[in-house]
């Protein structure tokens, strides 16, 4: 009996999380990168919180975007290299859902830690406490978008040797709207204004990416595997 959609995605998710827990060192890399990059700015610009406060939303968001990009390289490559992905495309099961489950695991490991760490980083950059909920909310939605969008790029470039630079060139321009709305939401919240508009837009983008992204990922992955 074939497993249902839920148990199929559960299996993929459980497998990826179990694999990740056996490689803690790799899992925490994006988080450490995020923290280090955001600490560089006070050192380079000025430790004065008044100056940092103005650019804090931008710093946090650009750092989150780059950290998420850093983790993308290892999203599909190990599975493609050892032949697992080939077995998945030959399983007769919907590849799009399996890749969506993989992307979800990737977000839990590379995106969620950034979201949790963000208030601390914001605090270090002089962000007022009142902006934290919007910071966390915008990053939660935004890193989700980045994971799915990045997943499409990763599936396309996975068969290219040393494809990480190509991946960055491909994905970063497409991620700009997410950065713009995400940073804008935090900026509005810091000035005590309502951030509902950009947050709604981010949520709409996330829904769009989750509904259409897996189809694109599966199509790209089939091209990469069938070569």
């Amino acid at each position: 009996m074939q497993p249902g959609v839920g148990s199929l995605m559960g299996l993929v998710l459980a497998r990826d999380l179990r694999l990740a827990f056996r490689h803690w060192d790799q899992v925490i890399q994006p988080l450490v990168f995020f923290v280090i990059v955001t600490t560089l700015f006070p050192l380079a610009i000025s430790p004065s919180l008044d100056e940092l406060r103005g650019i804090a939303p931008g710093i946090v968001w650009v750092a989150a975007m780059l950290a998420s990009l850093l983790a993308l390289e290892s999203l599909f490559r190990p599975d493609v290299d050892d032949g697992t992905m080939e077995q998945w495309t030959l399983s007769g099961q919907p590849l799009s859902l399996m890749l969506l489950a993989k992307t979800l695991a990737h977000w839990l490991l590379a995106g969620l830690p950034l979201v949790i760490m963000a208030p601390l980083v914001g605090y270090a950059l002089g962000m007022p406490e009142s902006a934290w909920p919007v910071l966390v909310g915008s990053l939660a939605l935004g890193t989700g978008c980045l994971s799915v969008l990045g997943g499409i790029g990763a599936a396309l470039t996975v068969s290219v040797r040393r494809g990480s630079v190509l991946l960055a060139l491909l994905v970063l321009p497409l991620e700009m709207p997410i950065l713009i709305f995400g940073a804008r939401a935090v900026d509005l919240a810091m000035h005590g204004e309502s951030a509902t508009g950009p947050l709604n837009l981010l949520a709409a983008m996330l829904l769009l990416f989750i509904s259409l992204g897996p189809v694109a990922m599966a199509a790209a992955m089939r091209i990469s595997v069938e070569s």
Partner: protein
Amino acid sequence: MPNASASGAKLEVRGLHLWRGERHLLRNVSFAVEPGELLQVAGPNGVGKTSLLRCAAGLLPVESGEIFWRHQPIAAQRDTYHSELAYLAHVNALKVDLTARENLLFGVGIRRSVTSEEIDQALARVEIPHCRDLPVRSLSAGQKRRVAIARILLTRPALWILDEPITNLDVGGIALFERCMATHLEEGGMILTAAHQSLLAGRSGVRTLELH
């Protein structure tokens, strides 16, 4: 058990051509595999055995020619075809950080529900029950191959497509695998394989396709 004995279960390839870059690799290859038959693809290195197997599995798009499964083109029924097929490549598709048991649990689990007892039985059948809870990283190349074979046994598909299945297997392993293949053929299964040594030589229903 394989439901290959169902009527019309057969793999048929007609007039297959394949180019790799400028090279005309496969020239008008045609064959059919009926239930209970093993077709061994033979030929020197680089002649296109792996490409042929990948085409037959639907992993490589064919440029000209047709591939039928149960008299239907495979392109029109990809998921059905794939659910009745197991493909063993050069690589074992095992996660080295997971144990043999976990690898089978996830590798087979995405295709059908599998219990721990079934996994234990399959590992016993490939004669490595003691490797159950060892990470695959610590297994020898031959033991890894046996885990990959256990995955096929557990998946229980009608058609096996095997690329150099006995690589790294010792004498006992080859004999064991030939027994598994014989059982599969007796149950009405089909096997398409590329191997340098002839497998199940002399058995009825075993044919060789020479590529030039």
